[in-house]
């Protein structure tokens, strides 16, 4: 049966890329290159190294931003999950941040921090933190009462309960929050490159557009999507391996 699933995936890829190729040949727009043209451009950029340099630039604020968001986000999330006062005080902030279109803040951030790495890191952070915080807080708060009671009944101190029960039990949801955070951070990184200053991959996109080199532009975009999808899938597989038992639900059916 793996064959069938694989075949259907290949088939669907073929259909979509085939449609792309055809649409490019029609052409539905002068600005719509064919699939093959775009792939050729991508190959060219890979072999002459431009794409790697570009990603080096683009990924920097992403990595830094996600790292900061993860550390602070999990920390704040833990605190919110554990303390009712802290939850009352801080969770509305993050709920609002989650629902709001934070992209609107970009001009302000640019004004405060200029157009360099700092403001890009900030953009990644404001996009990634809310989901990490809220997921962590929710995971902590939803620790099965039964497990906490069990630990207390065996004389666990509060610290034991936190380290041996709450954290391990919350890990799967925290990890998936991180995954969502990375995904949101990606959007932040790309947005800041298209809006603040073009560097890295964003630069390839804007520059190729301005000189009407559409294959390169599409190639760059294709590569971003490919990279994001591959990386997030990798994280998901990792999540499944690490938390194999937990994904079946808590052992209290």
């Amino acid at each position: 049966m793996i064959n069938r699933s694989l075949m259907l995936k290949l088939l669907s890829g073929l259909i979509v890329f085939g449609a792309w190729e055809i649409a490019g040949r029609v052409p539905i727009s002068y600005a719509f290159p064919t699939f093959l043209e775009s792939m050729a451009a991508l190959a060219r950029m890979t072999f002459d190294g431009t794409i790697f340099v570009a990603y080096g630039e683009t990924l920097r604020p992403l990595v830094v931003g996600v790292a900061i968001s993860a550390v602070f986000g999990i920390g704040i999330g833990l605190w919110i999950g554990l303390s009712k006062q802290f939850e009352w005080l801080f969770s509305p902030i993050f709920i609002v941040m989650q629902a709001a279109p934070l992209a609107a803040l970009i001009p302000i951030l640019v004004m405060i921090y200029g157009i360099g790495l700092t403001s890009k890191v900030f953009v990644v952070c404001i996009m990634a933190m809310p989901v990490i915080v809220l997921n962590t807080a929710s995971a902590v708060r939803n620790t099965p009462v039964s497990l906490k009671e069990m630990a207390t009944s065996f004389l666990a101190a509060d610290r034991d309960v936190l380290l041996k029960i709450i954290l391990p039990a919350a890990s799967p949801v925290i990890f998936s929050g991180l995954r969502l955070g990375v995904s949101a951070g990606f959007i932040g990184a790309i947005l800041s490159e298209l809006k603040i200053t073009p560097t890295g991959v964003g630069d390839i996109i804007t520059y190729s557009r301005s000189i009407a080199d559409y294959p390169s532009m599409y190639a760059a975009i294709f590569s971003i999507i490919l990279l994001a999808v591959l990386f997030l899938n990798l994280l998901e597989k990792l999540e499944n391996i690490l938390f194999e038992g937990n994904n079946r639900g808590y052992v209290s059916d």
Partner: protein
Amino acid sequence: MSQIKPDARQAIPATDSAVSVRNVSKVYGDVQALKDLTLDFPRGELTSLLGPSGCGKTTLLKIIAGLLPATSGEVLINGRAVTGPGPDRSFVFQDFALMPWATVLRNVAFGLELRGVAKSEREAVAEKYIAAVGLAGFEQKYPHQLSGGMRQRVGLARALSVKAEVLLLDEPFSAVDEQTRRKFQEDMLELVQNEKKTFIFVTHSIEEAVYVSDQIAILLPRPSRVSEIIRPASFRDKGVANIRRDPEYLDIVDRIWASLRNYVE
């Protein structure tokens, strides 16, 4: 009447109760879960708390365990008042409460781990009890790889490993299938014989209570009170296979049902 027995085991001096509940009340907001409950649990025996839902039996068990505070009244273990969980009691949970990220070995050794026992020592103890409950060979498995019955045996092994005097069981067999449940009840009889502990067992199954118990306390709801204490006598030593057809067993079961059926919602 089964309560009057010439059996030596029945002649319990009033002072040898391992656990004494004295005038315990528990109020949640407007709801009075327990009102002025007094009950004794004889040392070395298995006492069941039996009753329909809402009669407060799990609440009482958790108060004895120290997991819930009583609103008034006190619980004495060997004469000393309960203020929280203690090394003299251990608990077996209805939904097993196993840590899904830990192996069977670590789960069973968890009580000892929390008490600071050294790793090699606690693992040795854990291995012993894992074998005692019939799970030898499964030490490195994870809970999700086990059946429901096996998971509960892990919970039982964990409770036994800490060698507490009083073992509290909260509907321990209600989350497993019927056949496994029957086997557990038979194993329970053997356990009570071999371990010199006091067992307090909450159940809503009449047959189960009459089968395993030395003493059955029947609780009725609204207000929660002990309505009757029954001490089955004649069939306790008959061997696991014969109990369910014993006339006294059947009589007691019928009697209890007759008095409880009005409380079914």
